[in-house]
C-alpha cells in the first residue's frame, strides 16, 4: 500500500514536471516568468522580448 501511494505521488509529480517542461519549451515561456503576477507575458527578470 505504501509503495502504491509513494509511486502514485511520484507519478503525479513527474506528470506535472514534464507538463511544465513541455509548456515552457512549447510556449517559449521562461521559468522566471512563471509567476502568476506576470501571466507569462512580462516580468521584471528579463530584458529581452520573449520570442513567441
Amino acid at each position: 500500500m505504501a509503495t502504491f501511494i509513494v509511486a502514485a505521488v511520484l507519478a503525479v509529480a513527474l506528470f506535472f514536471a514534464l507538463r511544465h517542461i513541455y509548456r515552457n519549451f512549447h510556449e517559449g515561456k521562461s521559468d522566471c516568468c512563471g509567476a502568476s503576477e506576470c501571466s507569462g507575458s512580462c516580468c521584471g527578470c528579463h530584458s529581452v522580448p520573449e520570442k513567441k
Partner: protein
Amino acid sequence: MATIAVALTGNPNTGKSTIFNELTGARQKIGNWPGVTVDKKVGYARHQDRAISIVDLPGTYSINARSPEEKIVIDYLMNNKLDLVMDVVDSSNIERNLFLTVQLLEKGIPLLIDLNMADDAERRGIKIDCRKLEDALGMPVVQTVGRSSKSARKLLDIFTSTVMSNYEPSQLVKDHIIKVQEIEASGKTESEKQEEIIEARYALIDTVIAQAVTMSNVGQTKSEKIDRFLANGVLALPIFLAIMYGVFMITFEWIGQPIADALDSLINEDFLDFATDALTDAGVAEWLVSLVCDGIIGGVGAVLTFVPLIFVLFFCLSFLDGTGYMARIAFIMDPIMRRCGLTGKGIMPLMMGFGCGVPAIMGARALDSEKDRMVSILVTPFLTCGAKLPIMALFAAMFFPDNAANVVFAMYISGVIMAIIAAKGLGSSIFKDKGSTFLLELPPYRMPDMKSVLLETWDKGKGYLVKAGTIIFAASVLLWVLSNYNFDGPCEIDESILAVLGGWMSNLFVFHGFATWESGAALLSGIMAKETVVATIGVLYGAADVSTEAADAVESAGQMMQTGMATSFTALSALAFMVFSQLYTPCVTALGTIKKEAGGWKWMAFSAVYMFVIAWVVSLLVYQIGRLLGF
C-alpha cells in the same frame, strides 16, 4: 467610466521604471544599465475612482525605428488610442532628453513632460523654469523626484484630470514642424535631409533651453569625484578585479558556500537518512526507496545545494548594478572585450561563468545587442564552472600528482582560450551581419534601493528553484532508471542501459585513448550535471563513496588509484579526457537555459552539437599530438 490609458516614454535611465513602480506597485527591474527595459510593461492604478492602465515603454534616445526599442515605442504610440503620453525627462540631462521630446511633438503626439530627478538637477546647478518650458513647448510640465509617493500622487492627479485638453503646441514648435515638413519634401538626398532635420531639432532645443533653463557651475559632482578614483585609467582595472574577487569570495567562500555546505549536509545527509528510514519503515518497496533517495533526493538535492550560491551571487551583482558601478565595469573592460569580439558589457556574464554557467547565461540578458547576447550565451559554457572543477581536480591529482595545480590552471586557461576563439568565430560568421552597438551612459552613483535589489535577486533566483523541481527532477528519475535497469528488468549498473549507452558513446573515443564504457557512461551522465562525472566514475570503478568535492581530490585520487581506473587511463588519455570534459556539451540545466535565453530549440541543439564537436576535435588533437611527441 472607461479606463484611462497612459504611456510612459523617455530616454533610458531617466527613472521611468521607478516612477512606473511608484504609480502601479508592479514589479519591474530597476537597474542602472541603460536600456534595461526592452519589453512592454503594463501596470494598473486606481485614483479618484478612475481605473488607469499604464504602459512603461522601452527607454530610447530617438524614434527613428532603427532598434527594436525604437520600433516598439513608435509603433505603440502611433497605433494605440492613448489618453495621455508622459515623456519622462532626466532634468540633469535636459538638453539631450529634449531630442526625443521634439521628435514626439513632430509626430503630433501631445505630451505631459515630467521633469524627473529634479533634486539631482538642482544639485548640479541646473534650474528649470517649468512655466517658461510650458510656454516654449506648449505642453504641460510637471516636476517629480523618482522614488516619492508625493510625486506619484501628483502624477495620478494629472492623469485623472482633463489638463491635456488645455494645451496645444507652441508657435515655436509649430514653426519647427513646418520646417521639418519642408525639409522632408525637398529634393535632397536622405542623409542630407536627416542632417538638416537634426540641426533644426537642436536649434529648437537651444532656443527652449535659453528660455527656460539656467545653469550655474557647481564644480564636480559626487559621481564625477568617485569616478576619478574608480574609473581612473590606472586604478580602474585593479579596483575592478578586487571588487570581483570580493564578490567571488562572498559567494564561494564567506557567505554562499557555508550556507551551501549546510544545505548539502541537511539534504544529502539528514534528510536523505530520514527519508530512507521513513520509507523503509513504511514498507515501501526497495526499488522505490532507491528511486526516491538515490535518484530524486540525490539528483535534485545536488542542484538545490547551489541555490545559496546563486542567490548570494545575484544579490551581490544586483547590488553593484544598483550602485551604478556595473556600467563602469563595462566601460573599463570594453577595449579588452572588443579584442574577443564582444563589447564591454560582455564581461559580467563571462565572469559569472567561472562560478556556474546557468546564471552566466542568464546574465547575458544585460547585453544590449542581439549579437553580443547570443555570442555570450554560446561561449560561456566553455569556461570551467564550479561543477567541472572536481573532474579536473581528481584527474590532475591522480595522473599529474607533481603538477596538479598547474594542470588544473591550464584547464581554466584552455576554457578561456576556447571561449575567445569561439566568440571571434561566431562573431565573424553566424552573427556577422548583426550590429554590435555599445552605447553606454554612466549613471550617477547612488545607494541602491534594497527592496529593488531583493526583488531582482528573487526574480532571477526563483527560476533556478523552479528548474530544480521540474527539469532536474525529471532528469534524476531518468538517470536512475537508466542506471538500474536494462531491457530484462532490474540489473547491476554494469549491465544497465546506462552501461550500454556508455559503451556506444565510448566508440567515439577510440582515437582519444579513453574508449571504455565507464568513460562513455560518465561523460553521458555529465550531460545531466557535470558533478555526476566524478560520482559516476566512482561508482563504475568500484569506489562508490568517492567525494565529488574539489577539496577532497587528493583523497579521492588515492581511493581511485586502488581501482581499475588507474589502468584505464594513461596520463595522456587522462589529459584528453579532462580537455573533453572541459569543453563538451553543457549540462541539461545550462542547455535548458540556453534554449530559454536564446529563444529556441535551434540554438540549444546548436550549442550541444558544436561544443561536442569542438571538444572531440581538441581532445583528439591533444591525445594524438601528445603521442607524436612521445608522451
